[in-house]
């Protein structure tokens, strides 16, 4: 996994609340393997493109200053809905490395961490303020610094965010959880023995 430390990049605002993972990547593309040709083109497919493949000019990522944004500043409950990790893969394929939100769908939030994409949760007023600034100054850059746990707004203001130490460490080093857990093999084995005694009924009967 690519580590995340500090990023200064163009940020695009998405104002609608409750943008679900079906909108981020419609179900018909889930059959495509990660990294398939044109994968990034599936991102926000039905709100970003017309049926003939031409761009919808009103969609923010189709507007010149926001093209190639690497940070999204979104509204409440972004990434709600289905657990499809493809929603993160497709953001990543487009180049997005961080999503700043007042709240995120729980599973999407967890999926971000697994792919080196930093989810930043800040109070609703601050995020709304950031989006306003990005509308007023199209193409302005935002800085996300994971080590310092700050978001640098286009106007220069610094907003501190919470990052739990476990996730932070994994993202800073780019280590994946599976690698870590394999160090716990012996503990898992011991737990399994204790668990099988404590909950003697838990194993499914062999059939």
């Amino acid at each position: 996994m690519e580590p995340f430390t500090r990023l200064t990049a163009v940020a695009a605002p998405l104002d609608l609340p409750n943008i679900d993972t079906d909108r981020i990547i419609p179900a018909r593309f889930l059959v495509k393997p990660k990294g398939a040709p044109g994968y990034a083109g599936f991102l926000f497919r039905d709100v970003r493109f017309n049926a003939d493949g031409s761009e919808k000019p009103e969609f923010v990522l189709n507007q010149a200053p926001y093209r190639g944004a690497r940070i999204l500043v979104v509204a409440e409950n972004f990434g709600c809905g289905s657990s499809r990790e493809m929603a993160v893969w497709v953001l990543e394929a487009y180049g997005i490395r961080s999503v700043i939100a007042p709240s995120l769908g729980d599973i999407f939030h967890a999926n971000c961490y697994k792919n080196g994409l930093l989810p930043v949760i800040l109070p609703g007023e601050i995020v709304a303020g950031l989006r306003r600034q990005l509308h007023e100054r199209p193409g302005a850059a935002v800085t996300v610094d994971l080590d310092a746990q700050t978001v640098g707004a286009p106007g220069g203001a610094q907003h501190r965010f919470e990052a739990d130490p476990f996730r932070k460490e994994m993202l800073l080093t780019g280590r994946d959880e599976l690698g870590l857990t394999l160090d716990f093999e012996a503990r898992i084995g011991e737990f399994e023995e204790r668990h099988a005694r404590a909950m003697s009924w838990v194993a499914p009967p062999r059939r």
Partner: protein
Amino acid sequence: MFEKIWSRHVVAEGPGGHVLLYIDRHLLHEGSTRAFGRLQNSGRRVRRPDLTFATADHYVLTSPGSPAPDEEIRAMVASLGQHTAAQGIVYFGVGDARRGIVHVIGPELGLTLPGITLVCGDSHTATHGAFGALAFGIGSTEVEHVMATQTLWQKTPKVMRITVEGRLPAGVGAKDVILAIILKIGAAGAVGHAIEYAGSTFRAMSMDERMTVCNMSIEAGARAGMVAPDETTFAYLEGRPWVPRGDAWGDALAAWKTLPSDPGAPFDRDVQLSAGEIAPTVTWGTSPQDALPITGRVPNPADVDDAARRASMERALAYMGLKPGTPLTEIRVDRVFIGSCTNSRLEDLRAVARVVKGRRATVPAWIVPGSGLVKRAAEAEGLDRVFVAAGFEWREAGCSMCVGMNGETAREGERVASTSNRNFEGRQGKGARTHLVSPTMAAAAAVTGRLTDVRTLQS
């Protein structure tokens, strides 16, 4: 209850409130093939194939006998069969009567038990919480992690208790209860929480009804939702294929009876509703929180002060092709879909049959049973003949038009009364317009061709 289950599954504590949580059951569907691929590439094997079960639901066609027209879709299903065979995992594939929607077959086969941890790479895994299990949906990387280690790193969520007291009025069912809850707390209302559903309304519910409620916990933002196990739970489970037998059944029962929350147990948040105030409910917009009693009218964004909310309502109404002020019962539908892990169980189908018996569907209407066993049980009762006589299409088990991954979608602009769980833009097909309703309300809509208060049909 949450705390009791959680603490019994902690393998190790990590920093920042993270624990390594042991997983008792891992359910797989076609979406898991990516995780299998990565596992295989890294040379690892599934640690506990005996705790892992797989079925094909999302990509299988539900029209009897016709193979998927699309090569990629066929490959998805075939790949699951190959991986499970290679890893020694029990797989309910095409042709197996036990095959069905993963959240329907887990409980039906007794794979879902009180007090266990259960995960699946699907957000509606919360369904299994109806049994007093801690069940939640996970992403693809987490699926691989569980395959390899039978554990997951999880941060302890907060717990919200939602209490509903009283008897549900006639014509009001479990689907209306959960839609009313989401209307009250919002689609993000339970983000970061597990929900415990408490109160006499849930205690009076059957298992099928409790599953409908827990299923849509994710639509309220929660990864997990649970109901304390009781005699209803135990009676449902006894004798099912993968339920403990003999002495183990006695031990299990004794353990399960200790699960309900102790009186006075603290919750991070408490929400209360009264059953008597809940009406048959429909959604008018593109988020499950855009719900109203069927007696209402399409809301007017101009009446809303909050600018962001107004903008999102305007967009939803434009997508849905609706005008503010229209009585909901005047909205015509083009199609009806009865199915999905929310409402495709035997009791749902019985309720539909009661409404449609002796009537005719006036629009195309599909009934997709949740599993092969549900289908078989419904046919044994003659429900299929009621449906077919009423002009409904009786199909094979699967997810079908809930998500349309298998190609079974509504057409652009079509309006669907659907018993599924998501009315998102494009969920049932590009440009498709979804109104979420209960099974009886869907049946009523099929008969009249518009959204209908089922209470006006029931004499």
